[in-house]
């Protein structure tokens, strides 16, 4: 049997649960004698984007890696890589697997599953997370709080859209790669945390509302696509009962639950390495796996801190190890926190490192805050004989059904601290827990279960095909079976057979041919490779150009909007400054007024003093005059300041109105931008529709032209014949008229009415009689004429002879020259 396995990534590039499991499963199948073709994605800048490379990594096990080098353009592009489904379809065409087993369809997307269905390949889908119902497979919001599920068991598109917007805001603010799908608010700068909160919770207005509406619609339709794809598979599975329940609640069909096994051999060996530990030795705890916020490492740190603090002066000696991938923000935050509480943080590890890591741990913590689906780390710990304390989330409880672990409330450091303390303090309790660790399902067990299912599917598929052939005429069935068998072979096998076969033919038909020359000639003639590459390159160029164009247009609009926003902010700042200046001027004017008032008071006091102290009057008068002068100066100054304040007020009012105008302009610009976006979308849709129409019109035009051509040719021929017939009719009409004229003349001659047919015989007889009578008369006249001519000739001759005798023959000849010729013979 040939099996295709689809997964979004593989070790060593990606070492989280599903990817590691997929590779182990593939190896287990190959070891069982199944030919396994894995299709996965990788980032490899040395190759073309979307190129595929197949590599054999073990007997009967090959991995085809699709290079996905370009970053996703949007939220959807992360889940459904543009072009990946087509690439996967080509992979299916090449490999022709008997069954497609899907461990994860991320990247290839619903189109990939459809491609398998289109080719009649049975599909088994194993769900490892609730992607099918939530798109955000974590079912968490970007700020690591739960994503609420609706009555239909799925998050609302509204929440998904907010989440996507929050993530986009996060990515804009922080370098890519410094955060996962979710992040803790307390790790963020205050302004960014507040921005996320506003996007996630506050009513949205303006551009944000617009984007939110667009995203909601897009995500709702994408969610439908995914659900339809998962619904369309032949066997839909989930790796835990808990996940199956969530999926079913969300409207996705789940046919069976197949728990995951693990590659336990190396881990079991580490069990021996650990050996027996002193029962009083301090408890060594560890969190293993991606140290992303949803995995709850921060909760473990808080719990550990509390546990240590609760122990007070008594050093419990417990340790906490955080091992796994963390970068940027998380790495910094976790390291700092770990240093505070005395925990150790190590980096990412590979599956090969796991036995050694587990050998040094007494307890594995799984403090996840997302609805975990039976995490692999629990089974790995079990395989190494290490008990587990885990959050009561998702399908975790069923993983601990058979013992080996304790459950705590999720995202509750107190509860986790309590559980840790209990085990640290009561080592008997720990020992009991450790003894209850069950042997996990091995990958071999799991592989065997799948193989059984795959065999059933193949058998059912073959049976259907055989039934289809039964419907064919009997003599054709053997031929159809031959076709079907070849149809099921991978392309490379077909190529191998074809080349071998052609070689054999050549040996027979052209035994003297040089094989190298033959191959060179064939390469020369093969247009396929060149054409295929040219087509691919063209398609890629045009795709890149159009996407660059869109990006440039979008960036230009964004830049314009940003500029407007900057200008507005500048105006606002200016306005604030003017206000401050005006306020300061007012304050100064008030201070001056106060000074004036106090001066007046002083003047009054002096006046009183003056009145009271006449002796000092002269001296005082001088001073009074000075003071009066000073008052006058201050009065003038106060008036100037009042004027200045009024002026500042006016200026403020002007700036306020200008600012309002700018704001209005900005709103207009935003509206225009939105219109332009809508227009671009409409134009694109129209362009596509018109292209379709144009194609259809062309087709119709060609058909119509062909029909018109035929009709025209036929019309020409008909016209030609019609003209010929017309001229013949004309000829016949002329001939008829001629005959009729003849007939009429005859009738006139015979004195017969044309219509009177009975009169004709008599008239004809009469005419004949008359004719014969006239003929007879004519012959008598002729005869008489002949006789009279003879008589005349005789008389003439007699007369001539008489004359000759009298005047001589010569004179006569001269006188009667006209008779000579007639008589010459006789006369000479």
């Amino acid at each position, binding site marked *: 049997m040939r099996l295709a396995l689809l997964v979004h990534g593989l070790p060593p590039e990606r070492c989280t649960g599903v990817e590691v499991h997929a590779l182990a499963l593939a190896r287990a199948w190959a070891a069982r004698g199944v030919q396994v073709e894995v299709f996965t994605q990788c980032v490899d800048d040395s190759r073309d984007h979307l190129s595929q490379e197949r590599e054999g990594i073990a007997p009967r096990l090959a991995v085809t890696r699709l290079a996905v080098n370009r970053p996703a353009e949007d939220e959807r592009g992360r889940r459904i890589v543009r072009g990946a489904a087509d690439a996967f379809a*080509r992979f299916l*065409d*090449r490999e*022709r697997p008997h069954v497609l087993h899907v461990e994860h369809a991320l990247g290839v997307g619903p189109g990939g599953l459809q491609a398998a269905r289109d080719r009649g390949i049975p599909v088994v889908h194993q769900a490892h997370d609730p992607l099918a119902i939530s798109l955000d497979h974590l079912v968490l919001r970007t700020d690591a709080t739960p994503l609420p599920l609706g009555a239909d068991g799925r998050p609302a598109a509204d929440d998904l859209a907010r989440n996507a917007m929050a993530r986009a805001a996060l990515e804009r603010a922080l370098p890519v790669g410094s955060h996962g799908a979710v992040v803790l608010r307390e790790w963020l700068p205050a302004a960014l945390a507040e921005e996320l909160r506003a996007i996630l919770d506050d009513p949205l207005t303006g551009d944000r509302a617009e984007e939110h509406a667009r995203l909601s619609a897009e995500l709702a339709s994408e969610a439908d696509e995914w659900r339809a794809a998962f619904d369309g598979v032949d066997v839909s599975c989930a790796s835990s009962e808990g996940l199956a329940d969530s999926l079913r609640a969300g409207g996705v069909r789940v046919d069976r639950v197949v728990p995951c096994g693990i590659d336990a051999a190396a881990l079991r060996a580490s069990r021996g390495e650990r050996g027996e530990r002193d029962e009083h030795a301090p408890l060594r705890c560890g969190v293993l796996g991606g140290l992303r916020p949803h995995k709850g490492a921060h909760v473990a740190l808080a719990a550990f801190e509390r546990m240590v603090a609760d122990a007070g002066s008594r050093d419990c000696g417990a340790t906490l190890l955080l091992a796994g991938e963390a970068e940027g923000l998380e790495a910094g935050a976790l390291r700092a926190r770990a240093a505070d509480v005395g925990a150790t943080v190590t980096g990412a590890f590979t599956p090969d490192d796991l036995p050694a890591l587990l050998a040094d741990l007494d307890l594995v913590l799984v403090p996840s805050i997302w609805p975990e689906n039976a995490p692999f780390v629990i089974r790995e710990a079990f395989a190494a004989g290490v008990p587990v304390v885990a959050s009561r989330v998702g399908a975790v409880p069923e993983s601990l059904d058979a013992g080996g672990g304790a459950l705590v409330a999720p995202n509750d450091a107190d509860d986790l601290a309590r559980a840790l303390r209990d085990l640290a303090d009561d080592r008997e309790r720990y020992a009991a827990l450790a003894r209850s660790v069950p042997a996990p399902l091995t990958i071999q067990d799991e592989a065997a279960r799948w193989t059984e299912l795959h065999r059933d599917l193949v058998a059912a598929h073959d049976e259907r095909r055989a039934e289809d052939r039964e419907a*064919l*005429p*009997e*003599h*054709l069935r053997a*031929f*159809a079976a*031959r*076709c079907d068998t*070849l*149809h099921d*072979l991978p*392309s490379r096998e*077909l*190529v191998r*057979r*074809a*080349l071998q*076969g*052609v070689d*054999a*033919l*050549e040996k*027979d*038909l*052209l035994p003297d*041919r040089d094989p190298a020359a*033959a*191959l060179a*000639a*064939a*390469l*020369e*003639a*093969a*247009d*396929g*490779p060149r*054409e*295929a*590459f040219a087509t691919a390159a063209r398609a890629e160029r045009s795709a890149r150009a159009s996407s660059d164009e869109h990006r440039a247009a979008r960036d230009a609009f964004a830049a314009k909007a940003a500029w407007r926003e900057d200008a507005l902010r500048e105006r606002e700042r200016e306005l604030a400054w003017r206000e401050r200046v005006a306020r300061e001027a007012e304050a100064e004017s008030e201070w001056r007024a106060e000074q004036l008032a106090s001066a007046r008071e002083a003047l009054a006091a002096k006046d009183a003093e003056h009145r009271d102290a006449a002796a000092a009057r002269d001296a005082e008068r001088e001073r009074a005059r000075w003071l009066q002068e000073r008052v006058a100066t201050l009065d003038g100054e106060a008036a100037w300041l009042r004027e200045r304040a009024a002026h500042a007020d006016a200026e403020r009012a002007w700036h306020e109105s200008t600012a309002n105008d700018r704001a209005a302009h900005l709103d207009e610009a935003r509206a225009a931008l939105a219109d332009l976006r809508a227009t671009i979308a409409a134009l694109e849709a129209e362009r596509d529709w018109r292209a379709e129409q144009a194609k259809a019109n062309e087709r119709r035009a060609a058909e119509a032209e062909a029909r018109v051509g*035929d009709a025209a*040719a*036929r019309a020409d*021929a008909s016209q030609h014949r019609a003209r010929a017939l017309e001229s013949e009719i004309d000829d016949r009409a002329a001939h008829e008229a001629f005959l009729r004229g003849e007939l009429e003349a005859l009738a006139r001659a015979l004195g017969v009415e044309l219509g009177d047919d009975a009169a004709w015989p008599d008239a004809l007889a009469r005419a004949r009689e008359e004719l014969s009578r006239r003929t007879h008369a004519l012959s008598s006249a002729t005869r008489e004429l002949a006789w009279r001519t003879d008589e005349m000739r005789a008389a003439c001759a007699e007369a001539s002879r008489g004359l000759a005798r009298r005047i001589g023959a010569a004179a006569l000849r001269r006188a009667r020259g006209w008779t000579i010729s007639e008589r010459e013979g006789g006369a000479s």
Partner: protein
Amino acid sequence: MTHREPGRAPVSVVVPSYRDADWLARNLPAVVAELSRRARGDELIVVDDRGARPGDDHELLADALADVLTTAPDARVVVNERNLGFAPSVDRGVREARHALVFLLNPDVTVRAGFLDPLIAALEDPEVAAAAPRVVRADGGADAEALARLAWRRGFPALELADALDRDASSDEEHAATAALPAAFALGGASLWRRDELAGAGAFDPLFAPFYWEDVDRAWRAWRGGRRIVVCPRSVVVHENRGTIGAAVPERYVRAAIEKNRLLFAWKHVDEPRRLTEHLDALRARVLSAAARDDREALAWLCLALEQGADALRARDALPAAVAGFDELRARSDAGRAD
């Protein structure tokens, strides 16, 4: 010889049928009418290839066609015990035939009055191995097929229409001027043969099972032997293209059979080294192109043919020497001479 007058010899019309009762009910009356008009003792043999073992409970073709067959001077239905396919069914009908001339007729072909006489006249010439009528397509108005030539296209044999027949000619009278034109082959579904040349060893080569190209192979063997195949434009039939096979068999199998047999024909008949070199280069080029384009169908067709490669070479070795090379025969058999 009792039949000295051209076109007057009696004929056995053989019609192989697979679930074609409807076609037959539509098209046989014209055949029967023509045989009655000729009154030369012609016979009509329908071979029912549906496969009817004794005791099978299905309607007999003879019953379904009773109305038509009772009006025929001499008609009968013979039933294959199991479904055999086109060539074996023809063989069965030919063995049943009483007359020296056999007209092969597909159920989806309608004959026009007087279709037999010009063909019989053509077979008076012993060098003519088979004579075919002008075939008018049911869907294409005046379009004619059957005057085929064997072309050579980029290293592969291909059947094409020779443009010698004026396909725009609108009346049979205009065709009547042409007596007979050479053709690469006579459509297995409408052609007149000598019974002895169609029976047994001379019949269709099982190499080409299940269908297509077996008639081309049969005709080409005649050309190799120095004989001719002709089309008589005065004889006219109407063909519903792929009316019979297309209805019973999915397109992918039909296409696979055509492409497989095209290759087997080449391996059996192409004898000039230049053409063989071209062909083998083209085959390898096709493999390379198909591999690059993931064009699996082309590969599968080639593999399908290669499975019978040894059989094709045996058939090739068993052929008598040809009177002329492949290209020369193609030229002789091409009424259009346009290659």
